[in-house]
Protein backbone atom coordinates (compact mmCIF):
# COMPACT_ATOMS: atom_id res chain seq x y z
CA UNK A 1 0.00 0.00 0.00
CA UNK A 2 2.78 2.34 1.01
CA UNK A 3 4.64 1.42 -2.15
CA UNK A 4 1.61 2.38 -4.25
CA UNK A 5 1.37 5.79 -2.56
CA UNK A 6 5.03 6.43 -3.31
CA UNK A 7 4.62 5.37 -6.89
CA UNK A 8 1.73 7.84 -7.16
CA UNK A 9 3.88 10.64 -5.75
CA UNK A 10 6.70 9.80 -8.11
CA UNK A 11 4.32 9.80 -11.07
CA UNK A 12 2.97 13.17 -9.97
CA UNK A 13 6.49 14.58 -9.74
CA UNK A 14 7.30 13.24 -13.18
CA UNK A 15 4.21 14.95 -14.57
CA UNK A 16 5.24 18.23 -12.96
CA UNK A 17 8.74 18.02 -14.43
CA UNK A 18 7.44 17.04 -17.84
CA UNK A 19 4.97 19.94 -17.93
CA UNK A 20 6.19 22.71 -20.20
CA UNK A 21 7.02 25.93 -18.46
CA UNK A 22 4.19 28.44 -18.93
CA UNK A 23 5.77 30.81 -21.39
CA UNK A 24 5.35 34.52 -20.88
CA UNK A 25 5.55 37.14 -23.61
CA UNK A 26 8.80 39.04 -23.38
CA UNK A 27 8.56 42.65 -22.29
CA UNK A 28 10.56 45.35 -24.04
CA UNK A 29 13.14 45.20 -21.20
CA UNK A 30 13.55 41.44 -21.54
CA UNK A 31 13.92 41.73 -25.32
CA UNK A 32 16.62 44.39 -24.91
CA UNK A 33 18.53 42.43 -22.28
CA UNK A 34 18.27 39.06 -24.08
CA UNK A 35 19.04 40.80 -27.41
CA UNK A 36 16.47 38.63 -29.20
CA UNK A 37 13.14 39.55 -30.74
CA UNK A 38 10.96 36.57 -31.66
CA UNK A 39 8.71 37.22 -34.68
CA UNK A 40 6.03 34.92 -36.08
CA UNK A 41 6.05 34.62 -39.89
CA UNK A 42 3.81 32.60 -42.17
CA UNK A 43 6.17 31.04 -44.74
CA UNK A 44 3.31 29.97 -47.02
CA UNK A 45 1.93 33.40 -47.76
CA UNK A 46 3.90 35.04 -50.57
CA UNK A 47 4.80 37.85 -50.96
CA UNK A 48 4.62 38.31 -47.16
CA UNK A 49 6.60 35.18 -46.40
CA UNK A 50 7.88 32.27 -48.48
CA UNK A 51 10.94 30.03 -48.71
CA UNK A 52 13.61 31.06 -51.20
CA UNK A 53 15.93 28.75 -53.12
CA UNK A 54 18.27 28.56 -50.11
CA UNK A 55 15.31 27.39 -48.01
CA UNK A 56 15.33 30.63 -46.02
CA UNK A 57 12.20 32.61 -45.32
CA UNK A 58 11.96 35.85 -47.27
CA UNK A 59 9.30 38.46 -47.97
CA UNK A 60 7.71 41.72 -46.90
CA UNK A 61 7.16 40.52 -43.31
CA UNK A 62 10.77 39.35 -43.04
CA UNK A 63 12.14 42.70 -44.21
CA UNK A 64 9.92 44.65 -41.81
CA UNK A 65 10.81 42.39 -38.87
CA UNK A 66 14.53 42.65 -39.62
CA UNK A 67 14.24 46.43 -39.84
CA UNK A 68 12.48 46.56 -36.46
CA UNK A 69 15.18 44.33 -34.95
CA UNK A 70 17.89 46.54 -36.40
CA UNK A 71 16.23 49.65 -34.91
CA UNK A 72 15.97 47.95 -31.52
CA UNK A 73 19.54 46.71 -31.77
CA UNK A 74 18.59 43.07 -31.23
CA UNK A 75 18.77 39.86 -33.22
CA UNK A 76 15.52 38.70 -34.88
CA UNK A 77 14.50 35.08 -34.47
CA UNK A 78 11.72 33.83 -36.75
CA UNK A 79 9.13 31.25 -35.77
CA UNK A 80 7.02 29.73 -38.53
CA UNK A 81 3.28 29.92 -38.05
CA UNK A 82 0.20 29.12 -40.08
CA UNK A 83 -2.85 31.34 -39.96
CA UNK A 84 -4.55 29.51 -37.10
CA UNK A 85 -1.36 29.56 -34.97
CA UNK A 86 -0.98 33.31 -34.90
CA UNK A 87 -3.05 34.20 -31.86
CA UNK A 88 -2.19 31.13 -29.73
CA UNK A 89 1.52 31.78 -30.34
CA UNK A 90 1.15 35.32 -28.96
CA UNK A 91 -0.90 34.20 -25.98
CA UNK A 92 1.58 31.49 -25.02
CA UNK A 93 4.58 33.76 -25.56
CA UNK A 94 6.07 31.72 -28.39
CA UNK A 95 6.36 34.96 -30.37
CA UNK A 96 6.77 38.59 -29.29
CA UNK A 97 5.48 40.06 -32.54
CA UNK A 98 3.13 38.41 -35.01
CA UNK A 99 3.09 39.13 -38.75
CA UNK A 100 1.30 37.22 -41.52
CA UNK A 101 -1.47 39.65 -42.55
CA UNK A 102 -3.03 39.66 -39.09
CA UNK A 103 -6.35 41.45 -39.55
CA UNK A 104 -7.53 43.67 -36.71
CA UNK A 105 -10.93 42.54 -35.39
CA UNK A 106 -12.83 43.31 -32.17
CA UNK A 107 -12.90 39.60 -31.27
CA UNK A 108 -9.13 39.29 -31.56
CA UNK A 109 -8.57 42.58 -29.71
CA UNK A 110 -10.15 40.94 -26.65
CA UNK A 111 -7.21 38.55 -26.36
CA UNK A 112 -4.23 40.24 -28.03
CA UNK A 113 -2.99 43.78 -28.73
CA UNK A 114 -2.51 45.33 -32.15
CA UNK A 115 0.01 47.87 -33.43
CA UNK A 116 -1.10 50.57 -35.87
CA UNK A 117 -1.96 49.09 -39.29
CA UNK A 118 0.90 48.29 -41.66
CA UNK A 119 -1.13 46.91 -44.53
CA UNK A 120 -4.70 46.94 -45.88
CA UNK A 121 -6.66 44.26 -47.64
CA UNK A 122 -9.72 45.27 -49.63
CA UNK A 123 -11.32 44.49 -52.96
CA UNK A 124 -10.56 46.66 -55.96
CA UNK A 125 -10.74 46.23 -59.73
CA UNK A 126 -7.76 45.67 -61.99
CA UNK A 127 -8.30 46.91 -65.57
CA UNK A 128 -6.13 47.71 -68.56
CA UNK A 129 -4.76 51.26 -68.37
CA UNK A 130 -6.37 52.27 -71.69
CA UNK A 131 -9.85 50.91 -70.90
CA UNK A 132 -12.75 53.34 -70.65
CA UNK A 133 -14.02 52.29 -67.21
CA UNK A 134 -13.97 55.06 -64.60
CA UNK A 135 -15.54 53.47 -61.53
CA UNK A 136 -16.25 49.93 -60.36
CA UNK A 137 -19.95 50.63 -61.02
CA UNK A 138 -19.11 50.90 -64.75
CA UNK A 139 -18.30 47.20 -64.68
CA UNK A 140 -21.94 46.33 -63.95
CA UNK A 141 -22.86 45.81 -67.59
CA UNK A 142 -23.75 42.83 -69.77
CA UNK A 143 -20.83 43.66 -72.07
CA UNK A 144 -18.23 43.42 -69.30
CA UNK A 145 -16.38 40.14 -68.85
CA UNK A 146 -14.92 39.62 -65.38
CA UNK A 147 -12.31 37.04 -64.47
CA UNK A 148 -12.40 35.58 -60.98
CA UNK A 149 -10.94 32.68 -59.03
CA UNK A 150 -13.40 30.03 -57.96
CA UNK A 151 -14.26 29.93 -54.25
CA UNK A 152 -12.81 33.35 -53.35
CA UNK A 153 -14.72 36.17 -51.61
CA UNK A 154 -14.75 38.47 -54.69
CA UNK A 155 -17.13 36.00 -56.36
CA UNK A 156 -19.77 36.89 -53.76
CA UNK A 157 -18.96 40.60 -54.10
CA UNK A 158 -19.52 40.38 -57.86
CA UNK A 159 -22.81 38.52 -57.44
CA UNK A 160 -24.05 41.26 -55.11
CA UNK A 161 -22.60 44.43 -56.63
CA UNK A 162 -22.04 43.64 -60.32
CA UNK A 163 -24.83 41.16 -61.13
CA UNK A 164 -24.97 42.08 -64.84
CA UNK A 165 -21.35 41.33 -65.66
CA UNK A 166 -20.37 38.00 -67.26
CA UNK A 167 -17.99 36.04 -65.06
CA UNK A 168 -15.43 33.42 -66.11
CA UNK A 169 -14.06 31.38 -63.21
CA UNK A 170 -10.57 29.92 -63.02
CA UNK A 171 -9.02 27.59 -60.46
CA UNK A 172 -5.90 29.54 -59.61
CA UNK A 173 -4.44 33.04 -59.75
CA UNK A 174 -1.71 32.47 -62.38
CA UNK A 175 -4.29 31.16 -64.88
CA UNK A 176 -6.77 33.93 -64.05
CA UNK A 177 -4.16 36.67 -64.49
CA UNK A 178 -2.87 35.13 -67.71
CA UNK A 179 -6.40 34.94 -69.13
CA UNK A 180 -6.93 38.60 -68.17
CA UNK A 181 -3.65 39.67 -69.75
CA UNK A 182 -4.47 37.77 -72.94
CA UNK A 183 -7.70 39.71 -73.28
CA UNK A 184 -10.22 37.10 -72.15
CA UNK A 185 -11.69 39.54 -69.65
CA UNK A 186 -12.01 43.26 -68.98
CA UNK A 187 -11.34 43.26 -65.24
CA UNK A 188 -10.42 41.21 -62.20
CA UNK A 189 -12.02 42.07 -58.89
CA UNK A 190 -9.84 40.91 -56.01
CA UNK A 191 -7.42 42.12 -53.36
CA UNK A 192 -5.42 43.38 -56.32
CA UNK A 193 -2.26 43.84 -54.20
CA UNK A 194 -1.73 40.09 -54.22
CA UNK A 195 -1.95 39.95 -58.04
CA UNK A 196 1.10 42.21 -58.45
CA UNK A 197 3.50 39.26 -58.37
CA UNK A 198 1.71 37.79 -61.41
CA UNK A 199 0.90 40.93 -63.39
CA UNK A 200 4.49 42.16 -63.30
CA UNK A 201 5.40 39.27 -65.63
CA UNK A 202 3.34 40.86 -68.42
CA UNK A 203 4.06 44.04 -70.35
CA UNK A 204 0.52 45.51 -70.42
CA UNK A 205 -0.04 48.76 -68.53
CA UNK A 206 -2.70 48.29 -65.88
CA UNK A 207 -4.78 50.53 -63.67
CA UNK A 208 -6.59 49.89 -60.37
CA UNK A 209 -10.06 51.21 -59.56
CA UNK A 210 -11.06 51.45 -55.91
CA UNK A 211 -14.50 51.38 -54.32
CA UNK A 212 -14.93 53.84 -51.49
CA UNK A 213 -17.76 51.83 -49.93
CA UNK A 214 -15.83 48.58 -49.79
CA UNK A 215 -14.96 47.02 -46.44
CA UNK A 216 -11.24 47.55 -45.73
CA UNK A 217 -9.40 45.07 -43.51
CA UNK A 218 -6.52 46.55 -41.54
CA UNK A 219 -3.61 44.20 -40.96
CA UNK A 220 -1.41 45.00 -37.96
CA UNK A 221 1.48 43.55 -36.03
CA UNK A 222 0.07 41.46 -33.18
CA UNK A 223 1.45 41.53 -29.64
CA UNK A 224 0.60 39.76 -26.41
CA UNK A 225 -2.25 41.37 -24.51
CA UNK A 226 -0.99 44.19 -22.28
CA UNK A 227 2.60 44.21 -23.58
CA UNK A 228 2.37 47.99 -23.40
CA UNK A 229 5.96 49.22 -23.65
CA UNK A 230 6.74 47.01 -26.64
CA UNK A 231 3.51 48.11 -28.33
CA UNK A 232 4.27 51.81 -28.01
CA UNK A 233 7.81 51.25 -29.24
CA UNK A 234 6.49 49.35 -32.31
CA UNK A 235 3.98 52.13 -33.06
CA UNK A 236 6.67 54.81 -32.85
CA UNK A 237 8.95 52.75 -35.07
CA UNK A 238 6.18 52.11 -37.62
CA UNK A 239 5.40 55.84 -37.80
CA UNK A 240 9.06 56.45 -38.52
CA UNK A 241 9.23 53.73 -41.18
CA UNK A 242 6.01 54.87 -42.84
CA UNK A 243 7.20 58.49 -42.90
CA UNK A 244 10.72 57.87 -44.18
CA UNK A 245 9.35 55.69 -46.98
CA UNK A 246 10.77 52.33 -45.84
CA UNK A 247 7.37 50.64 -45.58
CA UNK A 248 5.98 51.86 -48.94
CA UNK A 249 9.28 50.97 -50.68
CA UNK A 250 9.43 47.51 -49.12
CA UNK A 251 5.78 46.95 -50.03
CA UNK A 252 6.46 47.91 -53.64
CA UNK A 253 9.54 45.66 -53.70
CA UNK A 254 7.61 42.55 -52.69
CA UNK A 255 4.12 43.20 -54.05
CA UNK A 256 5.27 44.75 -57.31
CA UNK A 257 2.86 47.66 -56.83
CA UNK A 258 1.83 50.36 -54.38
CA UNK A 259 -0.72 49.53 -51.71
CA UNK A 260 -4.17 49.95 -53.30
CA UNK A 261 -5.76 51.41 -50.13
CA UNK A 262 -2.65 53.02 -48.58
CA UNK A 263 -2.00 53.36 -44.85
CA UNK A 264 -1.04 56.92 -43.90
CA UNK A 265 1.74 57.55 -41.39
CA UNK A 266 0.07 57.66 -37.96
CA UNK A 267 1.65 60.18 -35.56
CA UNK A 268 -1.04 59.67 -32.89
CA UNK A 269 -1.95 56.35 -31.35
Amino acid at each position, binding site marked *: MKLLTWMGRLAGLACLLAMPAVAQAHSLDQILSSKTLVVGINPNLPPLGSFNSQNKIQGFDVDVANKLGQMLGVKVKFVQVNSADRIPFLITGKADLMMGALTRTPARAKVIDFSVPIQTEALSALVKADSSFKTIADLNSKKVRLIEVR*GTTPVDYVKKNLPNAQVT*LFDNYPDAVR*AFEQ*GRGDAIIDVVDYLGIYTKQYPAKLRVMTDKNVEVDYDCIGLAYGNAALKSWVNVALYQLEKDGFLPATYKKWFGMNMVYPVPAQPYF
Partner: protein
Amino acid sequence: MHYVLHYGQITPYIPYLLGGVLISLALSILSFAGGMVLGLVFAILRNEGGAAASRFVRGYVAFFTNTPQLVQIYVIYFGLPDFGILFTPFMAVLIGMTLNAAGYLTEILRAGLASVHAQELDAAETLNMSRLQTLRHVILPHLFRVTMPALTNQYILMMLGTSMAAIFGVEELTGRAFNINSTTFRSIEVFTTVAAIYVVVTFLATILLALFSRWAFRARVPVI
Protein backbone atom coordinates in the same frame (compact mmCIF):
# COMPACT_ATOMS: atom_id res chain seq x y z
CA MET B 1 -16.22 10.44 -38.19
CA HIS B 2 -19.53 12.21 -37.76
CA TYR B 3 -20.35 13.59 -41.15
CA VAL B 4 -24.04 13.97 -41.89
CA LEU B 5 -24.96 13.86 -45.56
CA HIS B 6 -27.20 16.73 -46.66
CA TYR B 7 -28.30 16.05 -50.20
CA GLY B 8 -31.12 18.51 -49.56
CA GLN B 9 -28.65 21.35 -50.00
CA ILE B 10 -27.81 20.11 -53.49
CA THR B 11 -31.34 19.59 -54.87
CA PRO B 12 -31.93 23.29 -55.66
CA TYR B 13 -28.90 23.11 -57.94
CA ILE B 14 -30.10 20.11 -59.99
CA PRO B 15 -31.49 22.24 -62.88
CA TYR B 16 -28.21 24.17 -62.90
CA LEU B 17 -26.28 20.88 -63.13
CA LEU B 18 -28.55 19.59 -65.91
CA GLY B 19 -27.80 22.77 -67.84
CA GLY B 20 -24.15 21.78 -67.49
CA VAL B 21 -24.98 18.34 -68.97
CA LEU B 22 -26.22 20.06 -72.14
CA ILE B 23 -22.88 21.86 -72.51
CA SER B 24 -20.99 18.59 -71.88
CA LEU B 25 -23.12 16.85 -74.52
CA ALA B 26 -22.63 19.69 -77.00
CA LEU B 27 -18.87 19.56 -76.50
CA SER B 28 -18.63 15.79 -76.82
CA ILE B 29 -21.02 15.41 -79.77
CA LEU B 30 -19.50 18.26 -81.78
CA SER B 31 -15.92 17.17 -81.15
CA PHE B 32 -16.80 13.53 -81.91
CA ALA B 33 -18.43 14.54 -85.18
CA GLY B 34 -15.46 16.73 -86.10
CA GLY B 35 -13.05 13.99 -85.06
CA MET B 36 -14.94 11.43 -87.21
CA VAL B 37 -14.70 13.58 -90.33
CA LEU B 38 -11.01 14.30 -89.78
CA GLY B 39 -10.32 10.71 -88.72
CA LEU B 40 -12.02 9.25 -91.80
CA VAL B 41 -10.07 11.56 -94.12
CA PHE B 42 -6.83 10.71 -92.31
CA ALA B 43 -7.51 6.97 -92.32
CA ILE B 44 -8.19 6.99 -96.08
CA LEU B 45 -5.13 9.19 -96.68
CA ARG B 46 -3.01 6.83 -94.62
CA ASN B 47 -4.13 3.80 -96.68
CA GLU B 48 -4.66 5.26 -100.14
CA GLY B 49 -2.71 8.53 -100.15
CA GLY B 50 0.89 9.01 -101.22
CA ALA B 51 3.96 8.47 -99.09
CA ALA B 52 4.02 12.08 -97.86
CA ALA B 53 0.33 12.06 -96.84
CA SER B 54 0.77 8.73 -95.12
CA ARG B 55 3.79 10.01 -93.20
CA PHE B 56 1.91 13.16 -92.17
CA VAL B 57 -1.00 11.11 -90.83
CA ARG B 58 1.35 8.81 -88.93
CA GLY B 59 3.08 11.83 -87.37
CA TYR B 60 -0.26 13.41 -86.47
CA VAL B 61 -1.56 10.26 -84.80
CA ALA B 62 1.70 9.73 -82.91
CA PHE B 63 1.66 13.31 -81.63
CA PHE B 64 -1.98 13.50 -80.57
CA THR B 65 -2.21 10.05 -79.00
CA ASN B 66 1.04 10.43 -77.06
CA THR B 67 0.44 13.81 -75.44
CA PRO B 68 -2.19 14.49 -72.77
CA GLN B 69 -5.35 16.16 -74.00
CA LEU B 70 -5.03 18.67 -71.15
CA VAL B 71 -1.66 19.81 -72.46
CA GLN B 72 -3.02 20.09 -76.01
CA ILE B 73 -5.86 22.33 -74.85
CA TYR B 74 -3.45 24.39 -72.74
CA VAL B 75 -1.42 25.10 -75.85
CA ILE B 76 -4.52 26.19 -77.76
CA TYR B 77 -6.00 28.17 -74.87
CA PHE B 78 -2.99 29.87 -73.32
CA GLY B 79 -0.29 29.42 -75.96
CA LEU B 80 -1.94 30.61 -79.17
CA PRO B 81 -3.08 34.02 -77.76
CA ASP B 82 0.61 34.95 -77.62
CA PHE B 83 0.50 34.73 -81.43
CA GLY B 84 -2.69 36.78 -81.54
CA ILE B 85 -5.11 33.84 -81.92
CA LEU B 86 -7.76 34.11 -79.22
CA PHE B 87 -10.51 31.50 -79.00
CA THR B 88 -13.39 31.60 -76.53
CA PRO B 89 -13.05 28.96 -73.80
CA PHE B 90 -15.71 26.77 -75.46
CA MET B 91 -14.09 27.00 -78.89
CA ALA B 92 -10.60 26.32 -77.52
CA VAL B 93 -11.76 23.18 -75.72
CA LEU B 94 -13.83 22.08 -78.73
CA ILE B 95 -10.88 22.45 -81.10
CA GLY B 96 -8.54 20.67 -78.68
CA MET B 97 -10.94 17.77 -78.18
CA THR B 98 -11.61 17.49 -81.92
CA LEU B 99 -7.92 17.32 -82.81
CA ASN B 100 -7.32 14.81 -80.04
CA ALA B 101 -10.31 12.67 -81.06
CA ALA B 102 -9.13 12.72 -84.69
CA GLY B 103 -5.90 11.03 -83.59
CA TYR B 104 -7.66 8.12 -81.91
CA LEU B 105 -10.47 7.83 -84.45
CA THR B 106 -7.97 7.63 -87.32
CA GLU B 107 -6.52 4.49 -85.80
CA ILE B 108 -9.93 2.94 -85.07
CA LEU B 109 -11.20 3.66 -88.59
CA ARG B 110 -7.97 2.46 -90.18
CA ALA B 111 -8.38 -0.85 -88.38
CA GLY B 112 -11.93 -0.96 -89.75
CA LEU B 113 -10.73 -0.28 -93.28
CA ALA B 114 -8.13 -3.02 -92.97
CA SER B 115 -10.83 -5.53 -92.04
CA VAL B 116 -12.73 -5.16 -95.32
CA HIS B 117 -12.43 -8.49 -97.14
CA ALA B 118 -10.46 -8.49 -100.35
CA GLN B 119 -13.18 -10.63 -102.01
CA GLU B 120 -15.78 -7.90 -101.37
CA LEU B 121 -13.54 -5.36 -103.07
CA ASP B 122 -13.01 -7.75 -105.98
CA ALA B 123 -16.77 -8.21 -106.23
CA ALA B 124 -17.27 -4.44 -106.33
CA GLU B 125 -14.70 -4.15 -109.09
CA THR B 126 -16.40 -6.95 -111.02
CA LEU B 127 -19.68 -5.03 -110.78
CA ASN B 128 -17.87 -2.06 -112.34
CA MET B 129 -18.33 0.17 -109.28
CA SER B 130 -16.31 3.37 -109.21
CA ARG B 131 -13.96 3.98 -106.30
CA LEU B 132 -16.45 6.35 -104.68
CA GLN B 133 -19.28 3.87 -105.15
CA THR B 134 -17.14 1.15 -103.59
CA LEU B 135 -16.44 3.41 -100.66
CA ARG B 136 -20.09 4.34 -100.20
CA HIS B 137 -21.70 0.91 -100.72
CA VAL B 138 -19.04 -1.59 -99.69
CA ILE B 139 -16.34 -0.15 -97.48
CA LEU B 140 -18.17 2.31 -95.21
CA PRO B 141 -21.08 0.03 -94.20
CA HIS B 142 -18.60 -2.69 -93.37
CA LEU B 143 -16.33 -0.22 -91.58
CA PHE B 144 -18.99 1.14 -89.25
CA ARG B 145 -20.43 -2.28 -88.58
CA VAL B 146 -17.05 -3.55 -87.39
CA THR B 147 -15.85 -0.48 -85.52
CA MET B 148 -19.07 0.51 -83.78
CA PRO B 149 -18.11 -0.94 -80.35
CA ALA B 150 -14.75 0.86 -80.44
CA LEU B 151 -16.39 4.09 -81.61
CA THR B 152 -18.94 3.89 -78.79
CA ASN B 153 -16.09 3.45 -76.32
CA GLN B 154 -14.30 6.44 -77.75
CA TYR B 155 -17.43 8.58 -77.49
CA ILE B 156 -17.96 7.60 -73.84
CA LEU B 157 -14.34 8.45 -73.02
CA MET B 158 -14.76 11.81 -74.72
CA MET B 159 -18.02 12.51 -72.92
CA LEU B 160 -16.22 11.93 -69.60
CA GLY B 161 -13.22 13.89 -70.87
CA THR B 162 -15.33 17.04 -71.25
CA SER B 163 -14.81 17.51 -67.50
CA MET B 164 -11.42 18.95 -68.47
CA ALA B 165 -13.19 21.99 -69.87
CA ALA B 166 -13.86 23.15 -66.30
CA ILE B 167 -10.20 24.15 -66.01
CA PHE B 168 -10.64 26.58 -68.90
CA GLY B 169 -13.69 28.33 -67.52
CA VAL B 170 -16.30 26.39 -69.52
CA GLU B 171 -19.13 25.79 -67.10
CA GLU B 172 -20.09 22.27 -68.10
CA LEU B 173 -21.18 19.63 -65.61
CA THR B 174 -17.91 19.39 -63.67
CA GLY B 175 -17.30 23.14 -63.79
CA ARG B 176 -20.74 23.75 -62.32
CA ALA B 177 -20.02 21.12 -59.67
CA PHE B 178 -16.84 23.03 -58.73
CA ASN B 179 -18.90 26.22 -58.46
CA ILE B 180 -21.50 24.61 -56.19
CA ASN B 181 -18.77 23.00 -54.10
CA SER B 182 -17.07 26.36 -53.60
CA THR B 183 -20.23 27.90 -52.16
CA THR B 184 -21.83 25.00 -50.25
CA PHE B 185 -18.65 23.07 -49.27
CA ARG B 186 -20.77 19.89 -49.55
CA SER B 187 -18.09 18.07 -51.55
CA ILE B 188 -19.32 14.52 -51.04
CA GLU B 189 -22.91 15.39 -51.90
CA VAL B 190 -22.00 17.51 -54.93
CA PHE B 191 -19.53 15.13 -56.51
CA THR B 192 -21.50 11.93 -55.87
CA THR B 193 -24.53 13.62 -57.44
CA VAL B 194 -22.45 14.63 -60.44
CA ALA B 195 -20.95 11.13 -60.70
CA ALA B 196 -24.48 9.70 -60.76
CA ILE B 197 -25.46 12.14 -63.53
CA TYR B 198 -22.43 11.08 -65.58
CA VAL B 199 -23.34 7.41 -65.14
CA VAL B 200 -26.91 8.01 -66.30
CA VAL B 201 -25.79 10.07 -69.30
CA THR B 202 -23.13 7.60 -70.47
CA PHE B 203 -25.47 4.66 -69.89
CA LEU B 204 -28.16 6.28 -72.02
CA ALA B 205 -25.55 7.16 -74.64
CA THR B 206 -24.37 3.54 -74.81
CA ILE B 207 -27.91 2.25 -75.31
CA LEU B 208 -28.76 4.86 -77.94
CA LEU B 209 -25.55 4.23 -79.86
CA ALA B 210 -26.11 0.45 -79.76
CA LEU B 211 -29.69 0.85 -81.04
CA PHE B 212 -28.46 3.24 -83.73
CA SER B 213 -25.74 0.88 -84.95
CA ARG B 214 -28.18 -2.05 -85.02
CA TRP B 215 -30.59 0.00 -87.08
CA ALA B 216 -28.15 1.77 -89.38
CA PHE B 217 -25.40 -0.83 -89.93
CA ARG B 218 -27.04 -4.05 -88.76
CA ALA B 219 -24.12 -4.32 -86.32
CA ARG B 220 -24.41 -7.30 -83.97
CA VAL B 221 -23.91 -5.39 -80.70
CA PRO B 222 -25.75 -6.09 -77.42
CA VAL B 223 -27.95 -3.18 -76.31
CA ILE B 224 -27.34 -3.66 -72.59
